[in-house]
């Protein structure tokens, strides 16, 4: 669906990635890591300095002439900094214009419009002018607008900025539904929890390089494999001698164990502890994507320090 072959542009350097059809992929990275540049390359708004970009089976170049009628119809693109709706028009008339631009048959247009306005919750302010809406309201309408013509490929740059929890949940379920119908989505976001909830695959950009790419589970195992188990014991003392625990701390009946989930599972640890102790309460903290990014930043600092020494 999207294929980058050794692409360099601005901060992006030698990025090669293949995003298959029908998958939702999150692109994470700190500010300035090249997330938006990657999306702009994917939709042809930017051309690579080196390498090639193929989207929907075609080289991602500026569509002109005949191509204009083919490529954008299959694309839904939302950039945080690009105006998508006419500010002096109401939400509803913006959608009507869009339906016309995308040549949607009336029946299909109204069916989609009503569905999206209910699901994303902009039905209640559909008659308001876009310029009078709050950021969150505008973003709901914009998300509806990019989904309206049922694109095959959706590129969303920071789509959850300004959205409340209900709207995020609505977006997540809409994307899941569309994914089941074959929609491919690429999302960039600063909010790791949003990405984690929606994306089957994650690409991590670090200083313009593709640092990691794979399923969420794979990334966590590779970059943040450390789990933390907290226990409150009723009786007994745990025997940790044979367990590959990285470290532990004890305060009377409260224990905290830190271990590498690649080496031992929580269930195995708990089973061993239960042989000598009675446990009143147990909680396990699993790392999230925020931890992955922290780990990457940490590695970067270590490499820089290492280079400083040599």
């Amino acid at each position, binding site marked *: 669906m999207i294929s980058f072959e050794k692409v360099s542009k601005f901060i992006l350097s030698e990025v090669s990635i293949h995003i298959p059809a029908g998958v939702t992929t999150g692109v994470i990275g700190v500010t300035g890591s090249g997330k938006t540049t990657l999306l702009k390359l994917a939709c042809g708004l930017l051309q690579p300095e080196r390498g090639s970009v193929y989207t929907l089976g075609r080289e991602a170049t*500026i569509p002109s002439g005949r191509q204009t009628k083919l490529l954008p119809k299959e694309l839904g693109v939302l950039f945080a900094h690009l105006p998508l709706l006419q500010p002096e028009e109401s939400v509803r008339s913006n959608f009507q214009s869009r339906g016309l631009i995308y040549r949607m048959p009336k029946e299909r247009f109204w069916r989609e419009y009503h569905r999206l306005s209910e699901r994303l919750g902009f039905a209640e302010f559909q008659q308001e002018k876009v310029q009078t809406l709050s950021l969150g309201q505008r973003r709901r309408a914009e998300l509806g607008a990019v989904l309206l013509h049922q694109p095959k490929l959706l590129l969303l740059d920071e789509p959850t900025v300004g959205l409340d929890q209900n709207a995020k949940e609505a977006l997540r379920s809409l994307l899941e539904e569309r994914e089941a119908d074959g929609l491919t989505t690429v999302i960039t976001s600063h909010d790791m929890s949003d990405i984690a909830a929606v994306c089957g695959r994650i690409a991590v950009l670090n200083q313009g390089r593709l640092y990691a790419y794979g399923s969420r589970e794979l990334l966590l195992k590779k970059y943040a494999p450390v789990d933390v188990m907290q226990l409150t014991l009723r009786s007994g003392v745990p025997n940790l001698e044979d367990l590959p625990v990285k470290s532990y701390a004890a305060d009377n009946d409260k224990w905290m164990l830190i271990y590498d989930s690649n080496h031992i599972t929580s269930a195995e640890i708990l089973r061993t502890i239960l042989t000598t102790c009675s446990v009143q309460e147990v909680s396990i903290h699993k790392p999230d994507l925020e931890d992955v990014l922290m780990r990457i930043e940490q590695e970067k600092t270590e490499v820089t320090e290492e280079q400083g020494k040599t």
Partner: protein
Amino acid sequence: MKNDTLHLAGVYTKTVMKSWFQYKVDAVLRSLAVFLREATGIIVIYFTLLKFDTLNGWNIYEMLFLFSLLFVTYGILIIFFTGLRDFGGTVRSGNFDRFILRPRGLLFQLIFCNADWFAAIGHGGLGIVLFVISAGKVGVVWNAATIVYYLLAIVGGVLIQGAIFLFLATLNIYLLETNSLKELFYWNMRKFAGYPISIFHKSIQVIMIYVVPFAFVNYFPAQYLLRKSDMAQYPDIFMYLTPLVGGGMYLLAYAFWRFSIRYYKSSGN
């Protein structure tokens, strides 16, 4: 569904109107302000020219006729070509990126999303007033042939200036900013075009005929209708070429646009 282009043009026009009519008084005053601003310039020239009987054989009404062609064509021009005139701003605001990502022609969107109807009323209105004042006094015999010629000359004049805007907009893709070029090649040349080109130095005449051919916007069409003696220094064929020059220039500028648009780079984050 294919024939919905006019409908969409109507929708875009309605949106542009709504945008202007957010501030109704300002919208009306804009037309008036443009009219008065340009009329003031003409009034100054009018009183200056009253001190002379003729300017290289052109009397005051013939000069006003020359000006009327310039204003009428510009009035029509900014309905269709404001988006190209202000292309740099459209790119900087991110709106051009938005156009690119829609399944409609780029020029179609640039034209209909930016039509400046109120300035058009100001410029076009002044052009019509000047035409009404001068047309009856310059000795033109208005018949079917001259009316058809006049209309074709207007179309050609609009296309010539539109081609200049389209060419400069295309250069914007490579140079990122072309305001100085626009000032130099359009606005300065347009100032010369208010007068018979025969009064200028040969080098300026060459520029106005062959480089930025404003002479075909008003001077040569006016010559066809007025037959002034200074036409003797130019080939007669020039009087008939305005529609061809307009069409040819526009096609060339359009080909340049089509070739160059693939090199467009989004303005960044």
